[in-house]
């Protein structure tokens, strides 16, 4: 079953077309990445899925039905703009948010304790939200997202503002959720995360879908070789026509080869003018594909 089935949804704000007609099909149990640069229309798309914004045109089906009260309770949503009632106690704000997702207080209390424990927030249980640090509030917000045990979890930039330890904690929990058969949608502009977590992706730019499908298949079709190399001396060989694009990171250079170019030829060329300390033929990263596609459509 497709958990999300959106057909031809689009949204304009005045003159500005935020999302152009877009299809999104997300099967059950998938980890789905909604990728795109800042201002691509990711948040607007998610808000339409969540029925916070109504699409100008097109239809959205969740769990096989149009959006309705039942569907709402099966979704956990972490908006990009985080926010909780600052003056409420942690435990109260959580049981309130569980309650408006249809979980009675008697049921949510033990779950709240479990999650606070898990997020190392137990000692803050009776404190006001505004007393928590920014990072703790983020974790709290995440608890609020999954407290009602949703079947679909929608996370808008879930990792922004978290330190590496909490990113890891979050990642582990997301993995647990997928293993439990939940469907996950998350938006990000940080490709490394998407690459690690996503099964399928949709890349949008300027409100338009650029690319979508299973990540593995996308990578296969983009299997033009990339090379990572480090060298000392003259780098003129990088201007050769077999080099389609190069990203210099200082420590190493990532090179995308032109159509049909042979990496061996580049190696010979490089060795003739510089001292090579590293030469590795790699599959293109999602980051490469992302930059390539975004540049191509901009």
């Amino acid at each position, binding site marked *: 079953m497709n958990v999300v089935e959106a057909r031809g949804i689009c949204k304009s704000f005045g003159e500005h077309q935020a999302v152009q007609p877009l299809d999104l099909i997300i099967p059950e149990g998938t980890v789905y990445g909604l990728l795109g640069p800042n201002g691509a229309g990711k948040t607007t798309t998610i*808000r339409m899925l969540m029925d916070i914004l109504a699409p100008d045109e097109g239809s959205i089906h969740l769990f096989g039905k149009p959006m309705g009260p039942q569907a*709402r*309770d099966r979704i956990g949503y972490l*908006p990009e703009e985080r926010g*909780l*009632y600052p003056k409420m106690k942690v435990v109260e704000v959580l049981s309130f948010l569980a*309650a408006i997702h249809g979980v009675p207080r008697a049921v949510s209390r033990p779950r709240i304790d479990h999650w606070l424990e898990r997020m190392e927030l137990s000692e803050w249980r009776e404190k006001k939200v505004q007393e928590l640090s920014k990072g703790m509030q983020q974790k709290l917000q995440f608890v609020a997202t999954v407290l009602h045990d949703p079947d679909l979890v929608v996370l808008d930039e879930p990792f922004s503002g978290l330190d590496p330890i909490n990113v890891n904690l979050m990642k582990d929990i997301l993995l647990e959720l997928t293993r439990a058969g939940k469907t996950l949608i998350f938006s990000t502009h940080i490709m490394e995360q998407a690459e690690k977590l996503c099964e399928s992706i949709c890349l949008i730019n300027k409100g338009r879908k650029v690319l979508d499908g299973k990540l593995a298949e996308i990578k296969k079709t983009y299997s033009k070789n990339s090379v990572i190399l480090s060298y000392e001396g003259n780098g003129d060989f990088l201007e050769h026509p077999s080099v389609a694009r190069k990203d210099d990171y200082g420590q190493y250079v990532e090179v995308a080869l032109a159509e049909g170019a042979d990496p061996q030829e580049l190696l010979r060329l490089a060795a003739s003018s510089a001292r090579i300390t590293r030469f590795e033929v790699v599959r293109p990263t999602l980051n490469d594909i992302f930059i390539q596609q975004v540049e191509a459509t901009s």
Partner: protein
Amino acid sequence: MNKGYEIFRREYLERVRKKSFLILTLIGPLLLSGMMVIPQLLINSSPDRVQQLAVIDLSGRLAEGLEEAFNTADNHLKDGRLRYPVEVVDLRGGDLEVLQEELNQRVADGSVYGYLVIPEDLAGEKKIAFYARNISNLRDQQALRNGLSNALIPLRFREAGLDMETDEILQRARRVRLHPVQIGEDGQVEASGRMAQVVKMATAYGMLMIFYMTLMLWGVSIMRGVVEEKSSKVVEVLLSSVTARQLLFGKVLGIGAVAMTQYLVWAGAGILGYFALSSSALELQGALATLSVWTVVAFLGYFVLGYFFYASLFAALGACSTSDEDMQQFQQIGAIPAIVGMLLSFYAFTNPDTTWSTVLSMIPPFTPFVMIVRTSVMAPPLWEVGLSVLSLLIGIVVMTWVAAKIFRIGILMTGKKPTFKEIFRWLRYA
């Protein structure tokens, strides 16, 4: 489980648990009664001191009786001295203007509190001039007015050849009072006496004030709640699980219930006080008896409906605001119809049965104001009540529809303040 109820529950509990609510609920009645009683006490408490008066008597016949007339029993100071000793100034055939200039000087330097100039023609003249530094002390002026009348009227009667005791003359010369008796729709006597009229007026304006204060205080509270949810960004989480309409209704009902709680506490305190002060209880009982059940029911009905109308308006205005500064401007937009409604209610009080009053009763923002007054003054025909309730209900449906729309769009808008053009465009969004 009803989600609207959860919103309602949170709004209610969060507000009722606040310390500020507790404090205001406890000391509110004290503040209010203080505000009403203290100025009254201050006005009535004239300092215990002698107010030296001077009299120029051009008729030469009135002056001598004045000191006695002014200083009735309640105008004696605690030490037995007269409050208004009178010095009769002899004109001695001199120039009135010169004499007055002299007296003006004495008034200015404080040796005389004020002076009266009594005209030559006592029979025809109605006005007697009083010169003083302070001419806004109503208590003094009342004492002088009563004293002058009590001295002058018997004199006039006697000069017209009527030989009677002073007291009897005063008795007979009393003005006639009108005793209003109100007949109800059923042809029965509904209320009678001046007291009933005063009670009616006090009830009408008391009820109006409660309504108006509720709108201003709690309407603004709704606005602030919406703005806070916007600025703390919690609103997007809310809207992912409840509809804008549920959020709106939960909020309006929750905050309405908070106001109700406060009023119930106050009413409870009032009833307790009523039994505690049983001496005044009888008087109050008499006054309350003139209040018909109908008036109370009508008040509660229009109060609740009017609250819904204005609460949705304030919620929508809150959804349009993006900051506290915006909020103050938008708040005025909500206050204007309420203020106009208050002003129109004064018209409706004196003219409860004119076409204008009927028409104004059918315009939703004004309906509660005009109808609360009209129903308490004179029962309007039933069809008018029905039609006004209907128009108010339609007004509420339209207002909540508009509010839910603006709420849904506006609540996610942050940053710049929307223009009216933009707000109208939101209404057309699905």
